[in-house]
């Protein structure tokens, strides 16, 4: 059974770029435009990995990570934050919220795939 990865970003460009790379590698993709939509979808249909932007309307990536960690069925779902932010204190904020990994935009497809394969092997 293929693994399902959720890409969460208010930019369709990033969602599509992530989808291209991961679908090509054999993952199934679910998309969400912000943290709120992502968490609603995850509660209805859990996924194997979440890749989320940080800055988004409604619910940001840090809030989404906290929500995922606080919800028993998704408590251990890996969350990778994909963002333009690269400051150590921001990464610490993500880690404190429960994020598993952090990728800085712009990202190389191989870099994304390496992280995803490590956290969610096919």
């Amino acid at each position: 059974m293929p693994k399902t990865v959720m890409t969460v970003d208010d930019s369709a460009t990033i969602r599509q770029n992530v989808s291209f790379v991961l679908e090509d590698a054999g993952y199934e993709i679910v998309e969400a435009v912000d943290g709120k939509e992502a968490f609603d979808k995850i509660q209805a249909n859990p996924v194997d990995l979440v890749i989320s932007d940080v800055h988004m309307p409604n619910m940001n990536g840090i809030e989404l990570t906290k929500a995922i960690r606080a919800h028993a069925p998704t408590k251990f779902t890996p969350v990778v934050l994909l963002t333009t932010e690269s400051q150590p204190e921001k990464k610490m904020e993500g880690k404190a919220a429960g994020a598993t990994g952090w990728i800085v935009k712009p990202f190389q497809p191989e870099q994304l795939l390496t992280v995803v394969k490590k956290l969610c092997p096919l």
Partner: protein
Amino acid sequence: MHVMSGFIRAGVREIFSTMVGTEVVCDESKDDNFTTQMILSGVSGTVSVTGKMTGSVYINFTANLANKVAAKIMGSDSLSDSEVNDVVGELTNMVTGNLKSKMADKGFNCALSIPTVIRGQDVQINPKDAPISLQSHFKSAEFGEIFTVDCFTKLDGELK
């Protein structure tokens, strides 16, 4: 060349190489300091920053160039204006985020707004209270047209 222009130019080159798959060069002969006004024409993305650095960053493409860049990133020639806007907004977000990171390393931490995209001809921008006004001109051999990155900022402290 202003220190921030160096940050912007390096960031734009990296982002276009990684996300667009094209190499861009900066026209070093263009003066990177300008004064009180900027005219946007075509498709422009802007992100505001606030904190130890306040102001705005703009990327200004002709409509034709915006379409070409978006088509390359999205792998499709038939994109809606909304899809092209999204690409321009995301590129602006990355360029500004890259600048933010480099400025944070210099002690000027700030927060970013969500990108806004402006379409139109001869849109006049008059920044207020922006002592640092920088413009860089970029071109890729692949696309052939120039685009600009403009940065209007004020820093809370001295940039060394």
